């Protein structure tokens, strides 16, 4: 019996260890995970050099896990999508968006279709997709869920469930591309940046997959930081992080996102996302 009590004490001891001085960040898992790991470990090295504070990246399995880690102060900085960023900042008082990609204020979602669906590219919303099989990306994604769902509801006046034969959540943009490419789903909604990246990587067979519609632009990805970071790492730390992110010039680092550069951001840039999320009932 003693053994077990000691064991319990050990477990508690392990978990209450607090690493006070490490600056930790995470990112939403929107693409292939091994690619993310490589990309953000490089970012960690870069930030550590710029900030002279020990910096670490931790991988998470879902968008919600990224938000929770941010909320629980297990990470102080995060690379969020539009929706996850809005959610996270709502939950952590004083937290703010400090940077976004150059392309992020005018982000787009592509609706892509497999040849077998018979759908053709169009300028207006292609209503012919009703009754097909359709996949979103992650449940918590902006470009893979929120915006496409918003446009689907607007066009049909019905929830996606009622519009399509079958609705799936692939989990990530790379996965959406793969599923439509293989024909497992006839139509999918995907982040335009990831689509282009997969296209360049030769992972899309253009004889089989085509873009049938592009959404109007909307604000998306952002770096957000907790409000109490200055207290923990010293005055002006938040500003230094912002400077380091915006000052990122190494093309190797930027290409992996892929973004041309990072620019400043403020919370209210993402107000349209919050409004849309409220409108379709994803945020109370």
């Amino acid at each position: 019996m003693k053994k077990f009590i000691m064991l319990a004490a050990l477990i508690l001891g392990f978990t209450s260890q607090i690493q006070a001085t490490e600056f930790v960040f995470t990112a939403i898992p929107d693409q292939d995970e091994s690619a993310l790991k490589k990309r953000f470990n490089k970012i960690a090295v870069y930030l550590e050099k710029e900030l002279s504070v020990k910096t670490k990246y931790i991988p998470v399995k879902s968008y919600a896990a990224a938000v929770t880690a941010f909320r629980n102060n297990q990470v102080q900085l995060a690379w969020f999508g539009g929706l996850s960023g809005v959610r996270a900042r709502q939950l952590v008082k004083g937290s703010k968006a400090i940077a976004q990609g150059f392309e992020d204020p005018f982000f787009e979602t592509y609706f892509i279709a497999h040849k077998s669906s018979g759908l053709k590219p169009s300028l207006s919303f292609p209503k012919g997709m009703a009754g097909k099989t359709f996949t979103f990306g992650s449940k918590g994604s902006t470009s893979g869920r929120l915006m496409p769902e918003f446009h689907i509801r607007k066009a049909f006046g019905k929830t996606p469930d009622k519009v399509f034969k079958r609705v799936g959540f692939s989990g990530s943009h790379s996965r959406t591309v793969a599923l439509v490419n293989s024909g497992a789903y006839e139509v999918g909604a995907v982040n335009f940046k990831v689509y282009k990246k997969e296209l360049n990587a030769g992972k899309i067979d253009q004889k089989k997959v085509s873009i049938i519609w592009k959404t109007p632009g909307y604000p998306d990805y952002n770096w957000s930081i907790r409000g109490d970071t200055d207290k923990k790492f010293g005055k002006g730390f938040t500003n230094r992080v912002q400077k380091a992110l915006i000052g990122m010039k190494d093309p190797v680092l930027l290409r992996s996102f892929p973004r041309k550069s990072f620019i400043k951001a403020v919370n209210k840039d993402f107000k349209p996302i919050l409004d849309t999320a409220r409108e379709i009932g994803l945020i109370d």
Partner: protein
Amino acid sequence: MMTLAFAILGVALANFTGFLLAVIFHYRAVRVACAFVRAVHELFWALIFLQIFGLTALTGVLAIAIPYSGICAKVYAELLEEADPAPMQAIPNGTSIVSLFFYAKLPGVWSNVKTYSFYRLECGLRSSAVLGFVGLPTLGFYLETAYKEGLYSDLSALLIVFYVLISTVRKWMRRETIPVLLIAACVVLPESGAMTWSNAWRFFAHDIMPTPIRNVETITIPIMLETWFWFQTLILNEALPGILNTIVLTMIALAATGILSLLFFPLISSLFFGPKSRLAGHTILVVIRSTPEYVIAFVLLQLLGPSMFPAVVALSFHNAAIIGHLIGNFSNHLRLRPDRSKGINLYSYETLPRIYPQFLAFLFYRWEVIFRETAILGILGVKTLGFFVDSAFADIRFDRAIVLIIITALLNIFIDILSRSIRSRLRLQTSLDTH
């Protein structure tokens, strides 16, 4: 390694608390509490603890320890109840309860307890691997990553590691190695980030309160109405469709399990096959039943898209392999006339009627298990209750998640009671050596 560490610590903790609870199992409150904690699937527990403790070792260990405590408590209590009363009667009055328990009751059931805790460890390994799917660093984590990125050779390597792990449990888990393994498990636990009790407090006091009453000082009638409306919407839009799909899927899977297990059991029965082909049969069944149904379903769903079919296949194959194994063994002990018939006649006229009561008993016994698993498959995209729970967690709406989890648990308890009453009405006797 993490898979092992979580499984060992979780199961050890569960055995200990389960045993303590078993001793006081005659209190109704304890029984109800145990029924409730075991009705909630490990993955749901993990999702809850992720909110409280984050990605820490404690999340993994507790997600296994809590439901398993409930299961162990029930099984051990049943074992103790069925213990041979003779030594108890032989002891003079006035002996203290403690020594009565340790010297008269416990020795009689000890070997059963031991066997069962081994079996639990096997289940624990399976659960622990599956926990990776929600982000803990166990085999499931790498399995999912490998699959999603199309690294199929990694995938098969991981699966093989897993089979080896499970099939060799009895080799490395012995009385002498237990303390070593426990300590080793503590050492390899992943380093944990900061964890504060305020997170836990916030979760209970704030997050799981229904949204309308979360931020108000006093509860007034309009707010109560709003809460009722919130609850109603949740029930109509998510719980009811979820319940319906879960039950439909459970029943189809149950029927399919029945049919498949009748096909499977002859594979290992000495009535139908010689020793060599039986060995092959055994191997097939072991592989099918040690693959977690969650993993089978995951692979099939990725291939076929989210419909009920892959879920039915996964659930029925896994459970049929278990039942097939049990009734196959049972059929080996049947005594038939020397001039019995052969082949299909032997199967349908001699064997089947004799094993049928056992078959039904096991099938009803798995009913509750199948329901639990059906609910959880929702996380993979089939629209059972788990789908809505997962969505609620993805939307950071823990209030909804908790209501849905409670509904799932209550249904599970209901099915458990129903299956028990059906079994006792049919007077089906079974030795419960598996869960």
